[in-house]
């Protein structure tokens, strides 16, 4: 199962709630303002690093770059472009958007 999160974790509870609902084999893709959840050294970094131990986390690179965050991404988070986004959707049996 693929979970997409498009909200900033310092503004809303979407990422937090998503991370509490990850089942075995589930992956998370951070898009739009959700990519702020992919950053090092923030107040939400720790919980993301914790989730990263058991689940793959991806971030949409065009959104990272738009926001000037290209040098701040947590090690282990995989960067994808829109093609990678499509592949992730195809690889997982279903997609859930945390709006």
């Amino acid at each position, binding site marked *: 199962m693929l979970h997409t999160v*498009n909200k900033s974790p310092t503004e809303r509870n979407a990422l937090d709630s998503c991370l509490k609902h990850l089942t075995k084999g589930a992956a998370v893709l951070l898009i739009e303002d959700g990519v702020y959840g992919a950053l090092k050294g923030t107040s939400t970094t720790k919980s993301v690093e914790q989730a990263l131990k058991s689940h793959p986390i991806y971030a949409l690179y065009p959104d990272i770059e738009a926001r000037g965050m290209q040098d701040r991404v947590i090690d282990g988070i995989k960067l994808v472009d829109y*093609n990678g986004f*499509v*592949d992730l959707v195809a690889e997982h049996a279903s997609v859930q958007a945390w709006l």
Partner: protein
Amino acid sequence: MKFGILINEGPYTHQASDTAYLFAKAAIEKGHKIHRVFFYHDGVYNSSRLTEPPQDDRHIVNRWQKLAKDHHIDLVVCVAAALRRGIKEENLQEGFRISGLGQLIESGIQSDRLVTFGD
């Protein structure tokens, strides 16, 4: 693979429609099929033919129209959501059609994946 897309937000105000478009374009380039794009909630505003963004900005309505024409994508605007937001045949861009929510459910049934973009 056959994808359905659901867009819940209007153009420019939220990034949802932009992301959905770039996703759809990538999917097509990779050989997938976009079964239908369903516009719900404020998403219905993506279909207004009166939209006129600044000249140096992307034209969200027209690029959906073009993508749909080039790749035979069904662009469906929810009638109930559209009526309460002032979208009617009168201001509907060519290439979009107004129909019922059943089209969304059908898209969920017919497509291999339904991907939602919203706020």
